[in-house]
């Protein structure tokens, strides 16, 4: 049974690889997308068959609710609002990673198991990347819709970001060394990472948002891979790193198409450089 489940994950991963491959050419793009969706179905069924799963009520309720909202969003959104929708879906995916990592940690700490260092680092990576994707995408959506103007205080934001980063590093150190003694460290870490996501995206100009969304897309894949390390699930690791790497390359390709360099997009605002654009 266990072998069958793992083979199903492998099947799903092959579907994803062929699907992404298909989506890079106009002629095969539609079929590539359908193939990827099939892979997802295989992966979900495989996960549901796992022995560890006992209560199906919560899962089915969540799937019905999420699926309903998803169909509604996909039908209702105007074609011109696609970049915003993709960005917000990205943030939603990041939120899911964040929730999974937090839930897993709460479970483990309640069970009283002492976690290993590698496991703790994987949890931290999952929380940090998930949270940054969540709030970063939210800022990106607001900027794409024009609700949030470009910041003239890029330098202040840079300071806030740096402080957050230091805070996250400190919190992560506490988390690895003595997480079970102070359960409050989890909300602190989550809060700091959420703030860090805002600080990283806020100084970037609205015109560069498509590149930022592509980068955040890569992040959400990496968050999935980190979750795979937490749960020791090879299917998640393969798919997450696949999306992460292809997302990074896509970001580079988009930067090239816009005649910009990635560091310039990411730090141009914060460094106060006006040489570009």
């Amino acid at each position, binding site marked *: 049974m266990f072998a069958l489940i793992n083979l199903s994950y492998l099947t*799903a991963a092959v579907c994803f*690889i062929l*699907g*992404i491959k298909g*989506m*890079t050419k*106009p002629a095969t*793009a*539609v079929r590539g*997308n359908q193939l*990827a*969706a099939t*892979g*997802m179905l295989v*992966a*979900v069924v*495989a*996960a*549901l068959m*796992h022995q560890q799963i*006992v209560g199906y009520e*919560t*899962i089915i309720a*969540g*799937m019905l*609710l*999420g699926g309903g*909202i*998803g169909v509604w969003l*996909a039908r209702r959104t105007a074609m011109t609002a*696609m970049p915003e*929708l993709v960005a917000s*879906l990205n943030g*939603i*995916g990041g*939120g*899911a990673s964040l929730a*999974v990592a937090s*839930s897993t940690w*709460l*479970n483990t700490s309640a*069970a009283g198991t002492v976690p290993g260092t590698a496991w703790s680092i994987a949890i931290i990576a999952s929380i940090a990347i998930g949270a940054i994707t969540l709030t970063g995408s939210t800022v990106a959506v607001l900027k794409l819709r024009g609700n949030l103007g470009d910041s003239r205080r890029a330098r202040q934001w840079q300071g806030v970001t740096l402080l957050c980063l230091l805070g996250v590093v400190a919190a992560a150190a506490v988390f690895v060394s003595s997480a079970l003694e102070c359960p409050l460290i989890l909300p602190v870490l989550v809060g700091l990472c959420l703030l860090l996501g805002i600080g990283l995206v806020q100084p970037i100009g609205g015109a560069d948002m498509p590149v930022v*969304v592509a980068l955040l*897309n890569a992040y*959400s*894949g990496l968050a*999935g891979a980190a979750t*795979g*390390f937490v*749960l*020791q699930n090879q299917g*998640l*690791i*393969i*798919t997450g*790193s696949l*999306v992460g790497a292809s997302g*990074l*390359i*896509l970001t580079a390709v988009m930067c090239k198409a816009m005649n910009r360099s990635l560091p310039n997009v990411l730090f141009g605002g914060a460094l106060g450089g006006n040489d570009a654009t």
Partner: protein
Amino acid sequence: MDLLVLSFTIFILALFVGVELINKVPPTLHTPLMSGTNAISGIVIVGAIFSAGSSEVSPTLAHALGFIAVTLASINIVAGFLVTDRMLNMFKRKG
């Protein structure tokens, strides 16, 4: 520890596959491709399923977070694939 090394190996190899997959994408396909890979990153639903339906000791908060995770991941997957399909079909009619 062996499992960790094995997982890490898979991680690095899959990164290379991901890099090799994307080359020479026409600019019109950038947004659909982004949306498609975004839908695939909804694979985290596998982790969400474990959080929501696991038989291990689970406090209410962990269970609630599992429910939230399943819901969010489902939105990501369903809307992601549907929207990608919509975008790609639009290209087909034009061309």
